[in-house]
């Protein structure tokens, strides 16, 4: 591995920060007000700077393509250095971070562009775009930071921007609450991340990612940290469950949908929520040390995937469907990590970024067309009014459903196969994966059907205003649709590659220096099925489920509309298994009660009571001693003389 000093990482990082300053400080100062920047100026500026970042990223990526396994490093300055703790502000682009930087800046640019039109009529667009640029800065820092504290800097920074953007329409208490919830739930995870860092520092004496991974190549170091590896990995994973919305900390993500839709696309689908997957992939030599931690990750991922997927089936809010779908897909990525297929997780991260950003932006276009309506039961038949949105969203839907040969097909299939074929694979996790894949295709079909096909159910008013979105919005949709359709060919499995002129799995090869490739045995030991059978089977399931979903929901809204027996299930799913209510009962209320007890009882009654009691006691003694104050000068004189005598004796050390 060769390291090249380059200013490119810094340029990539800093350019959205400049955009943030212009929209956040310069424009308001110049125009003497925060709400006065025009949408075009604000959006144009923000798009320009993230676009610039993308340009630098492309150049950097080009350099990566050139060498054997080069990495570009900017040493910016010494951040912390005292008492043996040395943390430089150092950025690094290698094949893994380079790939993510391309996704972040590329999709970021598209979403900025889209936002310029989508947010056109909002108040305070300047604020919106400054937050969006600030988010990109933090996300890029998360990915490029070459040590864990810098990664954590970005990690918390994206959390802040997420908070600010979810609560963008802050005058609405519910939206402000959603932002707060996101921040606090994430903080729970962050504590895990911190503890993981502290443990790592204790074991290895460094927090630098390059040094950690280099040290872990040394068998002596490995055997030394082996006993604590599980604890470290699980602590870090707690952080990941917060940021990447896994059980039990996923609850903030569905609420986060109250932010503007492009934000959901960028932050809550394509980039920020995948940070946990990136962190695990980055530290894969560490996670490899603990089969137990990996198993926990795989199980959490699989369970989250199924759980969230089932909730998505019963939602009526189009963004909520996509939100639970995101939670579910993130679960897939963790399933991949947990069985040791990190590069597959990164692959799915990438394809998911394409198709989920597309679906969210598409839903934004739909919501826009329907005058802000998000309830799918008040849509229907939109296909003929929104042809571009429909076409692109259809591509996104086919991709997420895993229809051959759209992007999701490749990455999902690889996850399913890894879940059974790799040494860490478990057959029932494979089954859960297949079930989830089935649900995914089904709820996606349902979403498409309720929105674009079937009866028109919107009001006269909404119907009257229906319109296809402008080119500034549909343009990014088409670009993403292209990526969602063909992006999967970056990771063609051997089986198919052989028919395509020996096309290799490009992404695995690309990441191999960072994530060692594991041979997928052609015939799995635990499930004696040929890879082709798995692939064929899952394709059939995807196609059937998707079209079943489309066909069933042309007339009905819920499964319970046909099968009466489903009514209680429908209710349970629509209410998201009552997890929010459970958390409220078990966590929020007790915390409030403890706070009341601490503030009202302990502080006021016990501690202050004791203090005031002492005060009263002193007063009683005082009134007793008052007797000494006779007002008789002679008594005072004698007492004074006595005191003086004692003092003199003391000073001349007669007494002591």
């Amino acid at each position, binding site marked *: 591995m060769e390291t090249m000093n380059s200013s490119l990482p810094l340029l990539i990082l800093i350019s959205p920060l400049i955009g943030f300053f212009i929209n956040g400080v310069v424009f308001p100062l110049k125009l003497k007000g925060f709400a006065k920047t025009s949408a075009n100026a604000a959006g144009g500026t923000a798009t320009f700077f993230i676009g610039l970042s993308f340009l630098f990223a492309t150049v950097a990526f080009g350099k990566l393509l050139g060498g054997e396994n080069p990495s570009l490093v900017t040493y910016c300055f010494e951040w912390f250095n005292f008492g043996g703790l040395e943390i430089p502000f150092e950025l690094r682009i290698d094949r893994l971070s380079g790939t993510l930087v391309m996704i972040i800046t590329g999709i970021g640019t598209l979403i900025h562009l889209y936002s310029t039109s989508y947010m056109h009529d909002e108040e305070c667009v300047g604020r919106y775009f400054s937050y969006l640029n600030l988010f990109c800065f933090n996300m890029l820092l998360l990915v490029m930071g070459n040590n864990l504290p810098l990664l954590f800097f970005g990690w918390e920074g994206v959390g802040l921007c997420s908070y600010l953007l979810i609560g963008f329409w802050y005058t*609405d208490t519910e939206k402000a609450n959603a932002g707060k919830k996101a921040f606090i739930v994430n903080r729970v995870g962050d504590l895990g991340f911190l503890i993981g860092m502290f443990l790592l520092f204790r074991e290895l004496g460094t927090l630098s990612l390059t040094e950690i991974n280099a040290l872990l190549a040394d068998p002596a170091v490995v055997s030394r940290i082996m006993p604590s590896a599980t604890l470290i990995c699980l602590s870090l994973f707690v952080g990941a469950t917060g940021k990447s919305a896994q059980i039990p900390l996923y609850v903030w993500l569905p609420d986060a949908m109250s932010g503007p839709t492009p934000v959901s696309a960028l932050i809550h689908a394509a980039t920020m929520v995948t940070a946990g997957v990136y962190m695990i992939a980055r530290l894969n030599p560490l996670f490899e040390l603990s089969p137990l931690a990996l198993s926990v990750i795989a199980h959490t991922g699989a369970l989250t995937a199924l759980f969230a997927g089932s909730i998505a089936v019963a939602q009526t809010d189009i963004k909520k469907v996509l939100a639970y779908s995101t939670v579910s897909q993130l679960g897939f990525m963790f399933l991949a990590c947990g069985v040791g297929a990190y590069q597959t997780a990164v692959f799915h991260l990438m394809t998911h970024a394409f198709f989920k950003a597309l679906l969210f932006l598409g839903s934004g276009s739909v919501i826009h067309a329907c005058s802000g309506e998000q309830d799918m039961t008040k849509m229907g038949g939109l296909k003929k009014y929104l042809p571009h949105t429909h076409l692109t969203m259809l591509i996104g839907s086919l991709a997420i459903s895993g229809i051959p040969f759209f992007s999701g097909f490749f990455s999902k299939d690889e996850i399913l196969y890894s879940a059974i074929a790799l040494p860490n694979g478990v057959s029932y996790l494979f089954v859960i994966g297949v079930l989830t894949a089935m649900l995914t295709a089904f709820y996606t079909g349902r979403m498409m059907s309720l929105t674009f096909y079937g009866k028109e159910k919107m009001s006269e008013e909404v119907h009257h205003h229906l319109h296809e979105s402008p080119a500034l919005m549909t343009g990014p949709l088409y670009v993403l649709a292209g990526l969602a359709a063909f992006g999967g060919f970056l990771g063609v499995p051997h089986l198919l590659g052989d028919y395509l002129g020996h096309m290799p799995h490009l992404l695995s090869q690309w990441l191999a220096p960072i994530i060692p490739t594991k041979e997928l045995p052609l015939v799995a030991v635990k499930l004696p099925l040929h890879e082709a059978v798995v692939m064929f089977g899952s394709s059939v399931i995807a196609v059937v489920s998707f079209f079943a979903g489309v066909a069933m929901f042309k007339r009905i809204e819920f499964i319970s509309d046909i099968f009466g027996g489903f009514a209680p299930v429908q209710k349970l799913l629509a209410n998201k298994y009552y997890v929010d209510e459970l958390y409220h009962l078990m966590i929020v209320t007790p*915390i409030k009660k403890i706070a009341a007890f601490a503030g009202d009882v302990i502080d006021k009654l016990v501690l*202050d009571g004791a203090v005031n009691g002492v005060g009263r006691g002193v007063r009683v003694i005082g009134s007793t001693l008052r007797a000494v104050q006779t007002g008789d000068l002679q008594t005072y004189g004698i007492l004074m003389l006595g005191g003086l005598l004692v003092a003199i004796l003391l000073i001349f050390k007669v007494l002591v």
Partner: protein
Amino acid sequence: METSTLLSWIIFTPLLFGLLVVLLPQRLEQQFRKAALVQTLVNALLATVVYLGFDGSSAGAQFVHLVEWLPDWGINYRVAIDGISLPLVMLTAYVAPLAILGTWPDLHHGAGLKKEKFFVFCLMALQSGMYGTFLAADVFLFYFFWEVVLIPMFFLIGIWGGKERIYATVKFFLYTMVGSLLMLVAIFWLLKTGATEFGAPTGELAALAKLNFAFDGSSLGAALSSPQTLLFLAFALAFVIKVPMVPFHTWLPDAHVQAPTVGSVFLAAVLLKMGTYGLMRIAIPMFPQAAHYFSSLFIALGVIGIIYGAFCALHQTDFKKLVAYSSVSHMGYIMIGLFAFQKVAIAGALYQMINHGISAGGLFLIVGFLYERLHTRNLGEFGGLAKSVPLMAIGFMIMTLSSVALPGTNGFVGEFPILLGAFQVWPVYVLFAGTGVILGAVYALKAYQLVMLGPQTRTDLDGLTDLNLKEIVAMSVLTVFVFGIGFFPKAFFWKSDAALESYGTSLIQKVSSK
């Protein structure tokens, strides 16, 4: 050793200005505040001169100024500065003008001045006391300035405070006095032992630090009756009351709520640090074995303080009380850092003293801005203000982020090393302390939301004005420090490196050698 009168100028400039104001005729009443501003700026300038002249490569005392005072007792007027007191002096010097600027009386709305001359005098005397405490290099002089601080603060709360000001100020005074008395006894003990040991009496802190008091850690009883422990506890009690450490904290919320805004800013930003500074300067390094023996107790109380303070903060409806309890919580981190006996954590503790000064000072200013405008501190009576006062909303957000220790802000620069360092020694305690990371976000964001977000519920907001120029300047300077320190901690703290290194090394050596 090079001597200089510069530090004495820093200490006495406020008092000289104070006397000047006293001599000025009453009709110039409206100008007194300007005199205070000039004084604080002169002090900031003097402090900057010291900072620039300070040799960061040396761990020892610099700018020493020695005047004989009570030579027969070995007590002298001796002031000096080192890498540990330097940041605290700078904090005082820079926060003071901001506190004056950010609480400038608004005379346009008919609010008159109340005993302005004495008010300004008190502010100035207070500063002299604080500088003196941080700069004293003689144990008795330290005590002298420590007590001097009490008097102006007593009047500031007692005269210009809120409804319950008398209760609050007497409580503040008595609490602190109780601690001080034991400290005085301990000081006499120190002086007496020093006189016997060295053959001649001396009050010089550096000399007294060489005294080795007997300590027997074989059992709790033996430890408790060791002279070193008695001395340590006598000093520590005075200091932890000031910090304040749970359970000695109940004076703080009352004092804060009753104090005028400028008093609260000084109290939170500087006064509390006198406690942690005293621990760092005297109680821990001079009685290291005793401090080490009882360190788990103090760390435990620090952790309890973090969690308990956060819970109390969460329950408050009075904005100022919420910030006051958040101080209790944040000072707990410093306690952990100081008693971890671990270099990274000690450095973090010193940084946290400065950082808490900035964020708490800023938050109290915000409380003051709101009270000045809407005459309430009740969190239920705000709501949706961000729309009317966007600049204040931004300032408040920045201070909130600093308070929750977001990376990139100064708060992280203090908290992260403390937790990381202490974790190496006390992992379980740190795990509990870490819940403060979560709870801190809960109450801070709750306060922010209740004030700034949601729908506007008040009907009298038409006349609500955003920050004026003076307030903007105050918040901007604080903001520069928040992010400046957050991104470039080295640039701000490098002059303390040598002192911290030698402090940590000698401390750890002292407790591990036996």
